[in-house]
Each structure stands twice: as C-alpha cells, then as structure tokens.
C-alpha cells in the first residue's frame, strides 16, 4: 500500500510517499499564505496513494478541508527518526519556528517532550534573520561559522535584539565568521537546555531544517559530549513519519 504524509510547517511544506517501508518520492515547497492550494496541488501531482496523514502547524486546516487524519509533529518526527535511526532515544528537531526535544523508548514511543514557547528564538527563522544581517545565505551560515574563532557571545536570544547586536558588531568591524559562530553557539546553548530537560540518553537524532547547518551539529556534539546523527534529509522526517503512520493506523 502506498501512503502519503504531508508536513505543513511554518516555513516549508514537505510531502513523502512511502510503500512497504520504502520512500518513493519526496517534495518540498516554501509555505505561502494559501497553503491549502499548495497542498492540494502537490497531492494532485502524485498518484496512487491510498492513505494520507497530515502533520505540522497547518494540520488542522488541511485535515478539515481534505477529510484526512492528523497527528502532531512530535509523533510524526518521532516515527520518522525512529525509522531512519532506530537506536535513537533522544531527538532534537529545530524547524522554522519551533524547537522540540523528544525522549523515546526502545519502540519509538514518545516518553516526554519539550517545545519552545511562542517566540522564534533559536529556530530556523532566527538563523535566517541573522544570516541576512551578516549578508550571507542561510545555507552558507554553517560553513562560515566553522571558519570563525570562538571569541564572541551573542547575549540576546530574542531575534529582534540579537539582530541589533549583530548589526552593532558588524559596524565595529568584527569578523563575520566569528559572529556566525557566536550565533550558532547561542542556538546550540538553547537546544542543550531543552535536551537536558527531557533527560539526555544515548546519541542524539537531529532533524528539522537547522540540522543541515554543520556548525550547529558540530557545536551540539561538543556541548553534550555525545554523537549527533543527522538523517540524510533532516527536513523530511515529519512527513516521512506521517506517511509511515498512515499505513499503521
């Protein structure tokens, strides 16, 4: 049976098709205001799925409009990461606007989780705004940070205030790579606090778009003294998990 999972996040939408535990297809779009049309169009282009399960920030609207079931991102990411990295007991997901940490048992069952509160501090959106202030693309921020020296601290976690700090540092002529590293460190610090709150166990499975940032991955491994595993496509674990769960219901 072919099943589909769609993860409607605040910054991007992912679609994954699965058959017999094999990924058949994956697609990704930037979330627009009218995400219902985006999802409808995406689904119209892929054929042959029997079941659909949606997750993410937009799950309620899509589930109501399309008449399908929904699960939370917590459950979807847990299923996706457990499928890709079965040994994982601790998950960190840093997406567009939230950060989540999840503790799993050996069967992939969610034991505990933490989610950031309403502000986007330390999330993908934070790094997007900061890379603009630094004048680089968000995908290049990790590489830039890795070439920086650990000499600065960004004290504001608030996106608005941190941007002001970055602009002030730039005006002083500070090395952009050092600022990038300081920003990465602040994201890492926040994630570590949330990881410790659920109780770190074993290696960390890191998913969500921010897991593509190599500097964050490296900083995290150093900070917790554990291995950090990133799946090949870390922004698709939610949609993958939803597709897998669709076949299991």
């Amino acid at each position, binding site marked *: 049976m072919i099943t589909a999972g769609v993860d409607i996040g605040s910054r991007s939408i992912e679609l994954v098709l699965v058959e017999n535990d094999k990924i058949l297809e994956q697609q990704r779009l930037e979330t627009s205001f009218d995400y219902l049309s985006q999802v409808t169009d995406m689904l119209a282009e892929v054929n042959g799925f029997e079941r659909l399960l949606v997750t993410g*920030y937009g799950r*309620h609207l899509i589930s109501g409009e399309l008449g399908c079931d929904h*699960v*939370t*991102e*917590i*459950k979807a990411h847990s299923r996706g990461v457990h499928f890709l990295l079965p040994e994982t007991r601790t998950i960190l997901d840093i997406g567009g606007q*939230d950060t989540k940490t999840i503790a799993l048992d050996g069967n992939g*069952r*969610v*034991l*505990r*989780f933490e*989610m950031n*509160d*309403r502000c986007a501090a330390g999330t993908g959106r934070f790094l997007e705004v900061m890379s603009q202030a630094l004048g680089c693309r968000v995908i290049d921020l990790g590489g830039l940070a890795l070439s920086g020296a650990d000499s600065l601290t960004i004290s504001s976690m608030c996106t608005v205030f941190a941007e002001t700090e970055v602009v002030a540092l730039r005006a002083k002529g500070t090395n952009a790579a050092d600022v990038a590293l300081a920003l990465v460190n602040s994201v890492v610090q926040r994630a570590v606090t949330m990881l410790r709150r659920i109780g770190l166990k074993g290696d960390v499975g890191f998913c969500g778009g921010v897991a593509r940032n190599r500097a964050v991955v490296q900083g995290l491994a150093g900070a917790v003294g554990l291995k950090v595993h990133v799946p090949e496509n870390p922004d698709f674990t939610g949609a993958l998990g939803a597709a897998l769960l669709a076949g299991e219901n």
Partner: protein
Amino acid sequence: MTSKYNEMWQKLDLDISAHAGLLSVLGRFYNDIYLSQQNRLQGMEYLDFVLSEVHGLRIRELQEARSAGRRIIGTFCVFVPEELILAADAVCVGLCAGAEAGFEEAERYLPRNTCALIKSFFGFRLAGLCPFTNSCDLVIGETTCDGKKKAYELFNEFTPTYVMEVPQSKRESARKLFKSEIKRLVAALEELTGNRISAAKLAGAIRLVNRRRKALQRLNRLREAVPSPISGRDALLINQVAFYDDPSRFTASMETLGDELEKRVAEGTGIVSPGTKRLLLSGCPMAVPNWKLPFVVEGAGAVIVGEESCIGERHTRDPVSEEGDTLEEMIDHLTDRYLRIDCACFTPNHERLDHITELARRLKADGVIHYNLQFCQPYAIEASKVERKLAAADIPMLRIETDYSMQDIGPLKTRVEAFVETLNF
C-alpha cells in the same frame, strides 16, 4: 444581551460601546466553546441562563440589594472568608478577571510583565467594563503574591480596597496572624455595614457556604465515574459561577444537577466514550471567561475530570467545622479551614503535592496538565516539585505556561495533542 440594561450600566459608569463589544465577543466564545457541545446535561441550562445574564440580571439583583441597604463586597481570592461577608448581611461577589480586556489602560500603571489576572482586574476597572467591580462598596484583597499585594495599593485609588494579610507559612505564629486578620476583617465589615456579626449570623453563613461546598464536592466526586458524566468545560463553568451567583439559588441548582449526574452515572452514560483519556488540570485559577486551555484539551479528544485550582478543588474541598456556639470558636474554625488552603504562596507546601497525587488517582486521571499563568512565579516554580512528585507516582504531566491571549493557540494545541498521543500508545 439586549440594551435593556443600558441605563443601569450607564449609572455604573461603564463604557457602553466597549462593554457591548466585550459582550458580543463573549457571546461568540460561549457559543463556540459551550453551546456547541453534544449530549449536554439539562441542568446546564441554568448555567447558560446565568451566563447570558451575567452582566444583566445578576447586576440588577446587586443594585436591588444595594437599594435595600445591603453592601456589595468584591473579592479576588479564596482566602477571603465569604462567611464573614454573608454574616454581616452583605453580598459577596468573586470578581473575575479572566479576559484580556483593558490591558493598555492597565499597563499605564502596571509593568508589562505582570500576570494576566492582575492586568485583567485593573483593565476591567479602568476601561469601565466590569459592572461587578463598579457595583462594589469595597474590594477585599489579600497578600497571596507580591504582584497582587502591590497592585491593590494602586487599585485602591479607583475602588476602595481593603487588604487582608495572608501568612506564607503554616506555623503557629502564622495561624495567630491569620486569626488576628480574620478578627480585623470582622471589625471592618461591621463598621462598613453597620451590622454586628453575631454567633447566630455567622453559624448560618457557615452552614450556607458549607452547603454549597458539599453540592460542588458531590459533582466533583461523580466525575470519578468512567466515562465522565460531564465535560471539564462545564465543570469549570460551574466552579466559576459559584463565585458570583446568589449562594442559596446556585446551591439548589447544583443539587438538582447532582441528581441528574448521579442518574447518568448509574446508567453508565457519559459525555464521552469510555476510552477517552482523562486529565486533571492543576495550578493557577481560570477565572471567567478564561476557557482557553479546557477548550484546547477537550478539542484534542481528552476529557478533563478535575480542577486542582482555586476555581475548583481549593475553593470547595474543606468545609468549616459547624461545631461550637461562640463567635470565638467559629473564628477558630474559620482560621483552621482557610489555612488548609494549599496555595503555592506557602512555603513549604507539601500538602499540595499530596493532594494532586491523591486527586489524580481518585479521579483515575491518565495524566495531569499543570497550568501556570505567565509571570506567576509561585506556581511556575512549584511546577518542578509537582512534576517530580507525579513522576514518582508514575503519573505523566505536561507543563503549560500561557496567558489570556489567543496568539499561542497553535503551539498549545500541538503540545496538548502530543501529550494526549503519548497517553494513547
């Protein structure tokens, strides 16, 4: 609500158009959160009626009482002994403060990072939105947190406010202090009303309030049944209305509702299916019309079976002893009863941890949602102890910190739904 009360509201100095706006928002909320429920109890019609007339008929009753020479006294906390107010032949209304109203006005006096409840009672008063506050001859505050304590000093500039000192421990010296505070309140009430609080009057008031506690405790007990016979939203509403409705009439209605619930439980019919996850809410009070979290929780397919909160268990759990004939004995009983309240303002506060665990077990709760209003330090900090205590008893807990705004509804839904998912495995 029609405008037949406009004249009364004008006399009470309300901002008529802002108030009309508030009522229409409330009406929509009530419709979505309450009237849309299926299979509701017949006895809830009384609550629907009371709510629909919350700023109308009940306010008219207060004006009539006032014309007949009775004083209207507002309170914000379960520490203020209602029995004394009733024994002085005054009317007691628990003021609500559960909506984001008048916050801009409130923030002219209060720091932005003040809890929503304090901002709300200021906001309602300053924006001319609360006919209850504006009907009060006196508001009795208390010192249960620093925010309220200091806010009452400012509030006194708008409405006469008397502050009762609540101790922070339960040692003998604290008991002495609280007893002296009760006596000071007796004198203040006698002076305000011109009525003497006699032993006979106080005994009658104690019996009246106890009867209401008993009726509400009976409802709470009936929620031990699986499936639960009443939604958490309805139960919260009952606990909220208990603070401002006429106590005799309200109690009689709740006794009737209790009979209906008992019948439902005997028939095994519930408001939800038997497998529905059962949750206990614990923490800060949810004042009218703060229905946000219960709406999210029950929207996520769970049912709330108890409220470990001042608008819930802490208000109704302990009766006042009805023994003794002298005023002094009764004041001792009141002191003992009110000092049994396990508010997070006390240190230490072990009793609360035991109560939550006991309540969760008795109600067969699958989990506990600990709710604290943002910037409410006592409950926010105590949450860590609650979490550990519940973990030791193998009861899952979710911590929620929020306020009255609707901005965080999305993330709240995700958290609560994910919590319910973990219970469903």
